[in-house]
C-alpha cells in the first residue's frame, strides 16, 4: 500500500472544500450548468439516466481494508447499498444525490479516497496490473511508477483542459494485464541489455468509435525521464490535438492524422528542451516515493502446506483453487482473484456487505491489501497458502467464490442503457443471460479461457473491440441490436476483433454466443487451443458459416 502523507491529505481536504463551494454555487445559480459540468466531471460526478453517478478513483487498482470499508459506508449511506467496479479499476455509485456529494466526498477523503480526475478532459486515473508487487513475472513494481504519474498529473495546471480525456496504463510484466496497447499512452517497464530500467512507450491506442492499437514511439525510455517524456507528449497533444470535433479529439486521431513518426518527432523535440529540467526523476525522488509503499512483512512459509493439500481433496475447493488462485513471487503465498461475476448477477457489482467481508478478509489474511482488476473482479494479492481454505469458505458464504475467472461467464460489461445516458442498448442483462446459458461451470471450464466484452454503445466502455467475443449494442429504429466481433484481445498481442456478420436483436444474442462457442468446440485443434487462437488460425469465416447457418 502507498501511504498518503500530510501533503496528500492537505490537497484532498482543499479539494473537498473547493467542491463543496462549487456545489453551493451551482445550487444557488452562481454557476450555470455549462460552467459547473466540467468542474463536477473533474471530481468524478456524472449525471446519468436516473441520478448522479460518482466515480471514485482507485489509483492503480489498490485499496486498503479501511478504504474498502469506507466505500461500503458510502454505498449504504448515500446510495442503494452497492457499487459497480469498472473496467478502469474504479468504482461507481449510481444513485448519489448532488446535495449529498460533498458529505460523501468528505467521508471518502478520511481514508484518502476521492473522485478526482475520474472524468473530464484530463489525465485520468493511471491503471496497471492488479497483480503488481505480487506476481513473479514483473521487473519492478509498476505501482511505483503509476504513483509518480498520479502525483504528477493531479490538478495539472497545463493539462486539465485537454482536447479530450487521457488514459495511461503501465505494465511491468511481459504478460500484459493492463491492456497498455489500447490506451492513449501505454508504458511497458522492462530492462535493456545493460540491465537498466526503462519504458517502451506506445501512443495513440484506444477503443471508442475509432479503435486503434497503440504505436510504439520509443523502445527504451530510461525510467528517470518518465515525467519529462510524458509532459512532452501531453504538451504536443494539448497544442495540436483536434478540438473542432469531439469524436476526433483523442490523441489517437492526432497520431493517426499526422503519423506516428511526425508525432514522435514533435515529442522528441519538445522533450529535448525539458528532459534535464525540474521533472527529471532523481534517484532520491523515486526512492522517497518507493519508501512510502508498505511492503507486506511476508513470513517464511513453505509452498503447498498441509492445510492446503488436505483441503484440495474437497472438489469444490480444488475447482476454485485451480481457477482463482495464482502464483506469487514469495514462497508459501498466492494471489487470489475474487470473481464479481456470480452467475446471473450484474458483472462487477458488489454489495456493501460483500465489500465489508472482503475488507475483513484482506485485513485478516492479506496484509490489508485489495486490488481491482480491469476485468471487473477483485483480487487479494498476498494470501498465505495455508489460509486459502478458510478464505474460500468465507468468500463462498457471501457469493464471492464463483470459480469462473477468465471463463465464458466472467463477462466484462459496461453499465449500458440501464444506467448510462450515452448508451444505445443494454449490456448488463445481456451478460446475465449469456452467463446463465453457461451456468454449468463444467461446461464453461471445458470451453476454457474466453473473454466476452459487452458495450452498450460505440464509446466502448465494455472494451468490446478487444473481447475474444465482443458484443456492441446499437439502436436500430428504436430496437436494441447487437454486433458481434470475434478474435479481439487486450493483452501483449492486442488486436481488434473482426465483425462476424449482421447485427442481431436482443433476444438472439445468448443463442448466437452459444453457437459461436459450439463452433469453436468443433473447430479447435485440441482442448489446449484457446478460442482466440482458433480464430487466429482459421479466421472468421468458419465461425460465420456455422453460426449464421443456424440463424
Amino acid at each position, binding site marked *: 500500500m502507498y501511504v498518503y502523507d500530510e501533503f496528500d491529505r492537505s490537497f484532498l481536504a482543499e479539494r473537498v472544500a473547493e467542491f463543496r463551494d462549487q456545489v453551493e454555487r451551482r445550487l444557488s445559480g452562481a454557476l450555470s*450548468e455549462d460552467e459547473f459540468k466540467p468542474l463536477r466531471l473533474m471530481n468524478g460526478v456524472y449525471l446519468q439516466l436516473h441520478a448522479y453517478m460518482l466515480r471514485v478513483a482507485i489509483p492503480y487498482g489498490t485499496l486498503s481494508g479501511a478504504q474498502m470499508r469506507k466505500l461500503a459506508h458510502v454505498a449504504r449511506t448515500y446510495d442503494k447499498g452497492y457499487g459497480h467496479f469498472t473496467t478502469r479499476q474504479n468504482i461507481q455509485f449510481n444513485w448519489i444525490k*448532488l446535495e449529498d456529494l460533498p458529505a460523501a466526498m468528505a467521508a471518502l477523503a478520511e481514508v484518502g479516497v476521492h473522485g478526482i480526475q475520474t472524468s473530464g478532459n484530463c489525465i485520468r486515473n493511471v491503471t496497471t496490473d492488479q497483480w503488481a508487487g505480487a506476481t513473479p513475472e514483473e521487473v519492478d513494481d509498476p505501482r511505483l511508477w503509476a504513483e509518480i504519474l498520479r502525483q504528477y498529473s493531479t490538478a495539472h495546471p497545463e493539462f486539465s483542459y485537454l482536447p479530450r480525456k487521457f488514459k495511461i496504463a503501465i505494465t511491468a510484466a511481459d504478460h500484459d494485464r493492463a491492456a497498455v496497447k489500447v490506451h492513449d499512452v501505454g508504458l511497458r517497464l522492462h530492462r535493456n541489455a545493460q540491465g537498466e530500467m526503462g519504458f517502451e512507450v506506445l501512443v495513440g491506442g484506444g477503443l471508442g468509435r475509432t479503435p486503434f492499437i497503440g504505436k510504439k514511439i520509443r523502445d527504451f525510455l530510461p525510467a528517470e525521464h518518465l515525467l519529462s517524456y510524458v509532459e512532452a507528449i501531453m504538451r504536443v497533444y494539448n497544442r495540436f490535438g483536434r478540438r473542432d470535433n469531439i469524436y476526433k479529439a483523442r490523441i489517437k486521431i492526432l497520431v493517426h492524422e499526422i503519423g506516428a513518426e511526425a508525432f514522435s518527432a514533435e515529442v522528441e523535440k519538445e522533450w529535448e528542451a525539458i528532459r534535464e529540467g525540474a521533472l527529471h526523476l532523481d534517484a532520491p525522488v523515486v526512492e522517497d516515493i518507493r519508501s512510502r509503499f508498505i511492503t507486506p512483512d511476508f513470513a517464511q512459509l513453505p509452498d503447498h502446506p498441509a492445510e492446503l493439500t488436505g483441503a484440495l481433496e474437497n472438489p469444490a475447493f480444488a475447482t476454485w483453487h485451480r481457477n482463482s488462485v495464482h502464483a506469487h513471487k514469495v514462497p508459501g503465498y498466492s494471489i487470489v482473484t475474487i470473481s464479481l461475476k456470480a452467475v446471473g448477477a450484474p458483472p462487477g457489482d458488489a*454489495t456493501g456487505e460483500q465489500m465489508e467481508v472482503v475488507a475483513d478478509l484482506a485485513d485478516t489474511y492479506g496484509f490489508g491489501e485489495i486490488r481491482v482488476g480491469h476485468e471487473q473482479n477483485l483480487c487479494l494479492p498476498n494470501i498465505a497458502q495455508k489460509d486459502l481454505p478458510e478464505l474460500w469458505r468465507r468468500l463462498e458464504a457471501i457469493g464471492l467464490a464463483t470459480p469462473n475467472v477468465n471463463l465464458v461467464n466472467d463477462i466484462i460489461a459496461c453499465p449500458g442503457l440501464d444506467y448510462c445516458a450515452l448508451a444505445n442498448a443494454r449490456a448488463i*442483462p445481456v451478460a446475465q443471460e449469456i452467463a446463465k446459458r453457461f451456468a454449468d461451470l463444467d461446461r464453461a471450464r471445458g470451453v476454457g479461457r474466453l473473454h466476452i466484452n459487452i458495450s452498450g454503445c460505440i464509446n466502448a466502455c465494455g472494451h468490446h473491440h478487444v473481447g475474444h467475443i465482443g458484443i456492441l449494442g446499437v439502436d436500430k429504429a428504436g430496437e436494441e441490436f447487437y454486433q458481434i466481433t470475434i478474435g479481439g484481445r487486450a493483452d501483449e498481442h492486442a488486436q481488434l476483433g473482426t465483425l462476424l456478420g449482421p447485427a442481431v436483436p436482443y433476444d438472439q444474442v445468448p443463442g448466437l454466443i452459444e453457437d459461436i462457442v459450439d463452433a469453436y468446440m468443433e473447430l479447435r485443434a485440441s482442448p489446449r487451443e484457446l478460442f482466440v487462437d482458433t480464430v487466429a488460425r482459421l479466421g472468421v469465416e468458419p465461425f460465420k458459416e456455422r453460426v449464421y447457418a443456424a440463424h
Partner: protein
Amino acid sequence: MTSPLQQKIKVTGPVVVTANRLADGAVVWRTAAGTWSTALADAAVVTTAPDALALLEGAHERDTDAVGPYIAPVVKGADGRIEPGNRRERIRVEGPTFALPSDTPPTDPLPA
C-alpha cells in the same frame, strides 16, 4: 454545441419535456403549470413542434431546478394513461431492467 433551443424540432406524436432535478438527479417532467414533477402522469403532453418548443423554452428559463431538459416521446395507454414512448424513457421511469444487487439475495437462487 448547438443549444437545444436552436435545434430543429420534429414532433410526430405526443411528447413531453423531461430532465433531471438539479439537487438529486431525480427524473422529472415539465407540467402545464410550468413546474417540475417526479410523476410522468403530471407531465404536460403536447403534439406540435411549436408547443413542444414553448414547453422546452419554459424549461430552460431557470437552470437551478432541473438539468438538461429535452423532448421525449410518450404514448397514450389503453386506459388513457401516459406511458414512456421508448425503451430509454421507460428505463428512466421504471429503473434498471434487472434486480439490483442487495445484501438480502433473492429467494429464488440460481442453480450452483
